[in-house]
Structure formats: structure tokens, C-alpha cells
């Protein structure tokens, strides 16, 4: 594409008026995907014999109506943003880290174990220590998959999913054995394995009185900002994105491809791991609790965060907005369930559709842009034979 780039510059500047189709697809592809998903969601609500307009307005007011709702939404957005930031890192390196769930759990376990081991430290020390432990826990878990990917060519999607399955069992083992709340009997706790009340010095302090909004929000936005700076303003980020665009080209340029893949996974896992600490130390109970299932602890945030990252265009800063919107969808979904009796699974269904539409529209978007460039190229220098086709070929190669 670089050879055609210079040739395109003049006509492109001359023809600033781009085609409507191209404009529509490039700027509105992601919002349009969301709209389409919401329309199908509305049809599902109709199928349930409820009124979609009432349903969605309940959802909106539950998510964004009033300061309490706004704070709850922000609170829900925190783990989503942390996972999304991790997704931005890994996917920009062309590594699909689908193991957010497991990394959240391992981060939570590492941070909980730290708080249980040294509960007496003052908050200024304990809180950073707990967050760091979570980052290490998540990073190690993702790093396993990254190492296998880089050095043994093991498909990372599969290994991260498998590691999710391992993580949940490790959590169940630790919480019902070594880390269980020994002072309370099972009869009192209702057979739900949990730790004892964690040291107050590790609690995330509330930052807005009268709501649950705590320091986690600041941490998540800071992590997103750091990830953005790392990706686009450091040599490491440049190498990471270069490896993501073409492993062969990066290797040819002398970049350490394998090590970069491992680092990308470590960083991605660290972000998800911090999400685990936020879930524990920002919770109302201030304990780590398991009902035996993965989603029982994570609330499916490991997968929801992937949706958030994709919806945010794989950019950590846009993901802040995206996380807030999806946080609202999840919080509002609960309000909608209470109001019109449609289960919150509707939100999960809509999320799946958003992913499907975003990836499906992507090809139309890119091919529209390429056809347009070919047209401009043809105007500039007469029709080169098969220009459109050869550009499509390049597209196909670049995508694989």
C-alpha cells in the first residue's frame, strides 16, 4: 500500500468530498452495529410480550438516571475498562487474549492472599502492594499462554480458555480450603466459601459520598491512559504494534517477535489481574467469595471486557467511553429485569450481537475505503489494469 500512498495524496486532497458510503462505514460502523444489536434486542423484548420502549427507558434510567445510577454504572465499568485495556494491548500485538476471566480470578487470588498475609501494613503501603500483587497474578496467568504461543506456537485462544477452566478450580480449592474464613462455620455463611473480612487498609476508599464509587475508577482510567501512552508513544508500543501488523516484517526489521508477544500477554494479563483486585477490594462485602462458578465471581467481565475493547476500536482511551456505555447496559439490564421481567441475559445477547456486527462490518468498511482509493488512483493516472482487484488482494494479505 505504501507505493500507492504517495500517488494517492494529491487526488485525495483534491477530492476531500468522500463518498457517503465510505464516510458512513468508516465513522458510523461501530455505532451502527450497536444500533442493529439494540433493534434485535427490542424484537426479543417484544417476543417476551413486553414493550421494548418501556424496557429500554427503564434500562436507560437504571443506568444513567440520577447520581446513584451514574456512580453504579461507573463502578461496573471499572473491571470492564481494565480488561478492555488488556485486550487493546494483546490484540494490537495480534494475540487474542480470551482468558480475561481466568486472569481476573488469579489477580484477585494473588491480591487477596497478599492482604491476608500482611494485613497490618498501613494503607499507603498495603493498597499499592495489593494492586501490584493482582497485576503479577494476572500477568503470570496470561504469560503462560503468551510463552506457549511465542515459543511453541500454541493457539492462544485455546490455551487462555483452558487456563480459565483451571483458574476457577484453583479459586474453588483455595477459597474452600487454605483461604477459607475459619472463624465462621459453613452453616452461618450459607455454604458459600469465602475469605474472612479483609484488612480495612486494603479497601478501596470511596471517592463520592453516598455512592459505591471508589478509587477503582481512578485506577482503571490511569491504567487505560498508561496503556495508551505505552502503545503509541514508546518504542515498546511501536514494536508491539509492528509485530501485530506483520510478524514477518517485524522479524525482518530485527525486532524480537517472540519476546514482544510474551510481553504483550504479560501486560494484558496484568490489566485483567488488577480488575480482579478491584472486584474484591471495591466490593461491598470486602471478602473474596465464590459460588463455585467462574461467572459467579467475575460476572462475565472477562468476556464483557473483550466486547468493550472491540467497541472502543481497540483504543484504550475510547474504551473509557465504551466501558461506561456497557457498564450502563449491564446496570440498566438489572433495572429492566426488575421492571418488565426480561432477564439480564438479554444484555449478554445484545453484546454478542455487537461483536458479530462490528467484525462483520469491518470488511465492508475496509473494502469500501480501498475501492475508493482505487477510484482516486484511476482518476489521477488513468485506469491501471485491475487496480481494484490488486488492492483487494493486498487487503486480503494484510488481514491474514
Amino acid at each position: 500500500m505504501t507505493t500507492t500512498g504517495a500517488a494517492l495524496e494529491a487526488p485525495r486532497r483534491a477530492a476531500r468530498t468522500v463518498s457517503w458510503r465510505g464516510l458512513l462505514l468508516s465513522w458510523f460502523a461501530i455505532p451502527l452495529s450497536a444500533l442493529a444489536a439494540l433493534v434485535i434486542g427490542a424484537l426479543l423484548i417484544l417476543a417476551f410480550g413486553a414493550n421494548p420502549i418501556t424496557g429500554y427507558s427503564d434500562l436507560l434510567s437504571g443506568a444513567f438516571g440520577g447520581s446513584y445510577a451514574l456512580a453504579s454504572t461507573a463502578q461496573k465499568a471499572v473491571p470492564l475498562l481494565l480488561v478492555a485495556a488488556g485486550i487493546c494491548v494483546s490484540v494490537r500485538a495480534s494475540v487474542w487474549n480470551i482468558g480475561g476471566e481466568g486472569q481476573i480470578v488469579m489477580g484477585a487470588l494473588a491480591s487477596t492472599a497478599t492482604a491476608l498475609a500482611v494485613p497490618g501494613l498501613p494503607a499507603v503501603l498495603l493498597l499499592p502492594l495489593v494492586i501490584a500483587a493482582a497485576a503479577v497474578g494476572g500477568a503470570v496467568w496470561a504469560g503462560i499462554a503468551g510463552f506457549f504461543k511465542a515459543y511453541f506456537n500454541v493457539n492462544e485462544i485455546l490455551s487462555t480458555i483452558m487456563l480459565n477452566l483451571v483458574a476457577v478450580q484453583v479459586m474453588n480449592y483455595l477459597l474452600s480450603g487454605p483461604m477459607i474464613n475459619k472463624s465462621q462455620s459453613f452453616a452461618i455463611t450459607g455454604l458459600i466459601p469465602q475469605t474472612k473480612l479483609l484488612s480495612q487498609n486494603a479497601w478501596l476508599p470511596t471517592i463520592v459520598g453516598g455512592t459505591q464509587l471508589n478509587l477503582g475508577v481512578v485506577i482503571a482510567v490511569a491504567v487505560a491512559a498508561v496503556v495508551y501512552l505505552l502503545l503509541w508513544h514508546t518504542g515498546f508500543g511501536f514494536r508491539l504494534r509492528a509485530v501485530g501488523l506483520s510478524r514477518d516484517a517485524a522479524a525482518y526489521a530485527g525486532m524480537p517477535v517472540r519476546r514482544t508477544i510474551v510481553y504483550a500477554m504479560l501486560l494484558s494479563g496484568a490489566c485483567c489481574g488488577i480488575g480482579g483486585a478491584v472486584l474484591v477490594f471495591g466490593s461491598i462485602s470486602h471478602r473474596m467469595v465464590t459460588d463455585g462458578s467462574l461467572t459467579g465471581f467475575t460476572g462475565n467481565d472477562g468476556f464483557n471486557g473483550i466486547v468493550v475493547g472491540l467497541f472502543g476500536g481497540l483504543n484504550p482511551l475510547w474504551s473509557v467511553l465504551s466501558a461506561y456505555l456497557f457498564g450502563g447496559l449491564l446496570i440498566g439490564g438489572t433495572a429492566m429485569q426488575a421492571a418488565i421481567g426480561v432477564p439480564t441475559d438479554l444484555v449478554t445477547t445484545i453484546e454478542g450481537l455487537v461483536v458479530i456486527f462490528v467484525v462483520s462490518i469491518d470488511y465492508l468498511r475496509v473494502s469500501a475505503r480501498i475501492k475508493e482509493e482505487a477510484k482516486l488512483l484511476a482518476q489521477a493516472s488513468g485506469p491501471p489494469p485491475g487496480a481494484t482487484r490488486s488492492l483487494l488482494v493486498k487487503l486480503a494479505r494484510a488481514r491474514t
Partner: protein
Amino acid sequence: MNQFFTYAVLTATIASAIQYTTPFLLAALGETVGQRSGVLNLGVDGIMLLGAFGCYYVALETGSDLLGIVVGVAIGAVLGLATAFMSVTLKAQQGISGIGVYIFGLGLSDLLFVRFVGTPLPVNPLPNVNIPLLDKIPAVGKMFFEQSLLVYITFLLVPAIVFFLYHTNYGTKVLAAGENPAAVDSLGISVARVRYSAVLFGCMMAGLAGASLLLLDGIFQEDLTQSAGFIAVALVYFGAWRPAGVMTGSLLYGLVTAVVLQWKSLGIIPTSAADLAATAPAVVTILALVVLAGRFRQPSALAKPYVRGA
């Protein structure tokens, strides 16, 4: 440990291992055909969940397991068309579109379950059909020939798919579409049609796998599959894209699962460590992927959408 090595317990363990294997094998065989045509379908788990719910609902309402299975396969077919449309026609990034299908299936299956099933009652399990004469063989009969019809069909599908892929005209087209789609195209054969049919078959198998899992458990619940669909995809890599290898991997997975469960119920594994033991199948799969990943080559065009001229 001694109470494990008895005739009754060992044969029962193997027999249940065969049952655990069935859903994984069905899904993995379907995925094998799809991947051999060059399409990576990661939505298997979502399709299994919807297939399982469809099967459960119909079997519960009509009392007919067979009708439930038919509906499970039909749901797989519908989602297969959608998957093929995304992967082949729209050339979507296959890894992530599959995750979309998974999340969609996870949400919708439970949405429908909560809405349409008031009191979740168990459905009848498939009856066991003893194979005459073979079931009289000591040990072997008890382990392999007192299973449901679906189990026999699943294992017979292995040689059937081997025959299809390697010894039929259409099977060759499927293999070629996954290795060198341009060559297929140059012969005037539609790569899209070959891939659509392979994906459709794979997704129908995923729907059937969901139905078989449901009939094994008897009752639907949220996230019934517990990532079984993803494990099935892993088993395709494990089996190096060959039906017999995929069967071996599935059997190993089923066996490890059955043995761990048996040991747990016999108290060989202390209850405190039972959760850790339950990680065994996943850990074995990861290690197997590490050992095998370098040795076999995946289909050259796997997960690469075909554009004429590329």
C-alpha cells in the same frame, strides 16, 4: 486405590468415559471438517448451548428425545448459515466473530430458558441399546456395547468422515479449499460453496453435540457446556486435523474426566483436593497442545478468507 481396580468399577468408569467423550467428539469432528475447508469456527460453544436448549425445550414439551435432537441439529444449521455468511461472504475476522457467536449463544440460551421453562424437570435419557452378541463379550461388552444409539452413531461417524474426506470427490474439494483455495477456484469450483457446506455441517454437528450433552445431563442450566465447545476446538488441534486423532484426543479427555469423577466419588482424592483434580483434563489438554503444536501443520488457508487473485 484398590477399590478402583475392580472389575465393576473399571468397566463402569470406561463406559462413562465413552459417554463423556460423545459430545466432545461430535463437536470436534464437525469442527475438523470446517477447519479442513479453511474456516475456523470458534462459536461452537454458543451453538452447542442453543442446540442444547432447543433439544431440552422440545424434549420437555413433547416427551420425544428424537424430536429434541432434530431441533438441536436444525438450530445448528441456522447458526451455521449465519457463521458461514460472516466468515465466507463478509470475510470477518474468524477468531473474534466466533467469540461473538459464543456470547450471543450464552446469553440467548439462558434468556429463553428463564423465560420459557417454568419448572426445570429432567427429560428422559436416551435408552441404552445393547448390541447382540458383542455385549456378551466379557468386560468389553459392558464398556462399549451397552450404550445409547447416539454413542454408536458418533463413533461410526469417525470412519465415515475419514472416508468422506480422503476418498470422495467432494471431500477432496474440502481439503483443497483449506490448503489452496486458489487452485480450487481455478478449476471452476466455488470455494464459497465448499466452505459454506463444510461450515454448515460443522455447526449441525455442534448443535447435535449440544443435544447429546443435554441428554447426558437430562436438564438444562445456565452455561451448561462449561466451555465444552472451546475444548472441542482444542481437540481438533490436538488431533492434528485428522478424524482418528481427534477421536483419540476426545477419548483421552473423556477418560481423564471419568477417572477424576470416579476417584472423587470413591474418596481416592480427598475432598479438599477434588477441585484441583478437576483441573486435570484442561491441564492435560494444554500440555498436549504444547507437545503437539510444533509437529503438525495446520491447513494452510485456515482462518484466511479467500479473495480471488490472492
